[in-house]
């Protein structure tokens, strides 16, 4: 049975939609909110309010409204897409990926959810999933530069250099482009050819400074060629374009930690960890900062978890030993020190078998 709607409530919704459609998003919001206080189970109003919040960069509020709307209308693909976008813009990339995946499954021929899903997976470091997702698409649409670029990036970051090179060659056929330079630069970074990588990435920045990730990789090349101050500037530019860029947050966090600017460093590292919560180095850097801030027991707890997950992480054992010593737990410190010595000896034995790399 459908209950008759009260005329006052309907007027509110009507006004909200009119304001929204005329671009007065901020003005529309209170009308939606008031309407929903009377009619809390309106999927349309919830979805519209979510969109208004998203337009106002209130992504958390948008997410809450879209989620309520989806509870009322499970499987509503446009709402699912909007929720994905809100997560994406809020920097909750894993959640965004889950939503885009649902949309992509429902609408496999649509390009936008496919590319957004691939981008999320890239940002989450799930390169082989991008490979699986985009390789068949690239086969069918070899001229789609966006697909080629995302696939090439995933292959190169996943050290699948030969296949990555094929994709880059395809992009290069269209002439010099920021995308091609970025991919070449990243390939050279992976091969430790830092000065050559720097040249490509500098060119990529010149060609298209707005290309996603370009400043993050340029920063890495600058850092690898011994210019941390310029690298920090590049990371900051990367974060101006995308505050949730993983690599820029991580690397800038480490540089700031080296400068003992711990508050700022933690801010960036935590953003990086929001994207990849399990990232060991990010977690280690946070723990090391906690120790330097005098919170030895907090650091100890974090480090104990890290070395349990990664028993060969020598620096984490060093810092854990230090935390134990600061906590006057000499026996535990000595035990960790013995592990450090053992790991160091093993590393040295491996290094002495290898050759020098420049």
């Amino acid at each position, binding site marked *: 049975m459908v209950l008759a709607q009260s005329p006052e409530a309907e007027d509110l919704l009507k006004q909200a939609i009119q304001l929204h459609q005329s671009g007065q998003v901020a003005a529309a919001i209170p009308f939606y909110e008031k309407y929903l206080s009377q009619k809390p189970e309106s999927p349309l109003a919830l979805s519209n309010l979510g969109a208004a919040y998203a337009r106002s960069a209130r992504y958390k509020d948008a997410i809450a409204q879209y989620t309520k709307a989806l509870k009322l209308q499970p499987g509503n693909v446009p709402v699912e897409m909007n929720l994905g976008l809100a997560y994406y813009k809020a920097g909750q990339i894993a959640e965004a990926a889950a939503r885009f995946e649902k949309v992509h499954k429902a609408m496999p021929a649509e390009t936008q959810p496919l590319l957004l899903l691939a981008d999320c997976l890239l940002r989450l470091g799930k390169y082989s999933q991008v490979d699986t997702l985009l390789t068949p698409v690239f086969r069918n649409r070899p001229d789609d530069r966006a697909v080629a670029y995302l696939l090439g990036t995933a292959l190169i970051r996943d050290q699948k250099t030969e296949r990555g090179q094929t994709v880059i060659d395809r992009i290069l056929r269209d002439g010099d482009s920021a995308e091609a330079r970025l991919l070449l630069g990243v390939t050279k970074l992976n091969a430790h050819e*830092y*000065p050559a990588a720097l040249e490509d990435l500098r060119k990529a920045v010149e060609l298209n400074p707005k290309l996603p990730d370009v400043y993050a990789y340029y920063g890495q090349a600058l850092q690898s060629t011994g210019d941390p101050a310029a690298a920090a500037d590049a990371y900051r530019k990367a974060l101006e374009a995308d505050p949730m860029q993983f690599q820029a947050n991580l690397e800038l966090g480490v540089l700031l930690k080296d400068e*003992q600017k711990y508050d700022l460093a933690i801010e960036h590292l935590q953003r990086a960890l929001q994207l990849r919560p399990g990232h060991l180095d990010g977690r280690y850097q946070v723990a090391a900062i906690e120790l330097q801030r005098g919170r030895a027991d907090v650091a100890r707890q974090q480090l104990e978890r890290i070395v349990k997950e990664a028993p060969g992480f020598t620096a984490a054992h060093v*810092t854990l030993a230090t935390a134990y010593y600061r906590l006057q737990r000499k026996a535990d410190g000595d035990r960790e020190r013995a592990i450090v010595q053992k790991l160091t000896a093993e590393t040295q034995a491996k290094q002495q078998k290898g050759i020098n790399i*420049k």
Partner: protein
Amino acid sequence: MTRRGFLGCTLGASAAFGAASPLFVERPASETGLVWTHDNAMSDAHYLPETLGPGCAFLDYDNDGWMDIYLVNSGPADFFKPAKPLRNALYRNNRDGTFTDVTDKAGVAGGTNFGMGVAVGDFDNDGWPDLFVTGYGNCILYKNNRDGTFTDVTRKAGLECPGWTTSAVWFDYDNDGKLDLFVCSFVAYGPGDRRACGVNKLGKGFYCIPRFFKPTASFLFHNNGDGTFTQKSAGTDIAKSMGKGLGVVAADINNDGLMDLFVANDTVQNFLYANRGNGRFEDISLPAEVAFSEGGQPRSGMGVDAADVFGSGFQDLFVANVDQEMFSLYRNQKNETFRDAAHANGVAQSTRLLSGWGLKFFDYDNDGALDLILANGHPDDMIESYSPAVKHKEPLLLFHQEDGKLRDVSKTAGPVFDNSYAARGLAVGDFNNDGRLDVLIGVNGGPPVLLENRSGEGNRWLGLKLQGVNCNRDAIGAKIRWAAGGVVRSRMKNGGGSYLSSHDPREVLGIGKAEKIDWVEIVWPKPSGKVQRIQNPPLGRYITVQEP
């Protein structure tokens, strides 16, 4: 012109004049006669020892009260056959700002090893400084014959240190009144250990990073008092610690009256050997927080020093590392732990792109507070091809202590600080006896650099030459306190420090503008441990103080 305008002009001119007055000036070889040049033996194969020397020293070998100079050269090795004989050099101070080469007469030319560094110490307590020269191949102990000549007594003394030795330090670890010897050993570099690290992108061979060579244990020799030494490392943490030692300083970091050792290692953790007595050394570097960086990484430690930089009564430590790692200034927490204060003192910020070697805490302007000088240069001659922001030749750095903090004053310290060098060893000493400590720098593949100190005009000072009687003759380990202008300052006479080099053994006590020194107190090292107080000592001159 108004009075205000006149004053403005005068003050402006004064400020401009002050800015233009160099704190240090380079004394060219054409003036000093120091015409010797280091031969680094650089080859296409890029053998690692080529890039690590040379060391240098200030010493008064003829006891005339004027600092002479010793310079270490490379030499024959299994990877290098010099086209012409290479020699170390001893220059006698002519007391007029010039020097005369007396190497051949003195018999200290070396030539039997690929020389690295020098440690000066009076091992036989006869009042005449002896020379210990390190290098690849062997080490050499030159005993001073008290007549301007030396004798190579290495074999007789039982000092065998095969392999590749770098910095060394004379110190009395068991307080028996005789100087013992610690010698840093770098990496295993025999023909069987050596490796070619390949050809780089420029099609050239390059210097292997030390990470790729096996670490070695350093040497501790006990002075038997009869001209011989016995190696005492066995069973101690010194023998167990496999390192790649480049720098060492002996200092009493916990004020227990026993000299400890701090060793800077390249690409592996540093070692801090706490002297627990009875010949036992305990490596406490990790709990002391001086082994690794704050990020838990080993750094490429090269030069070191120890000093009570901030007047806490405890010895702080310093390590110069390679570029990107930043140098470390470890502040003593008075409980056998340290905290890196390099950032708080601007040291980390100034050294991010530099690689440091010789260094020394010294009060260059005699205002009473310790300052710091750093000699830098990247070991890889092709570094600029890989890391454009990093240079092979690098500038010297000078820090001045103000209000308990170090401040980088290099940019205003004089034109010499605008120059770049492949600097390695660094020794501090007063070659012209004006009470202002000068600086000598060993340059890889080049002539040495002698910097004359022109700073601290009007500041007063007293120079002390301590002469042990019961303790070691050089009084290594002595503690000096002095009161002037209502301030009591203190200093420990440490052993070693810097990189491959030896400093003027005298201590210069600066008092700024204070009119006089009320008293100087010397706590002589054990075995006597006597405390001696001198009231109202003279100023502006060096005095010899003998242990009572």
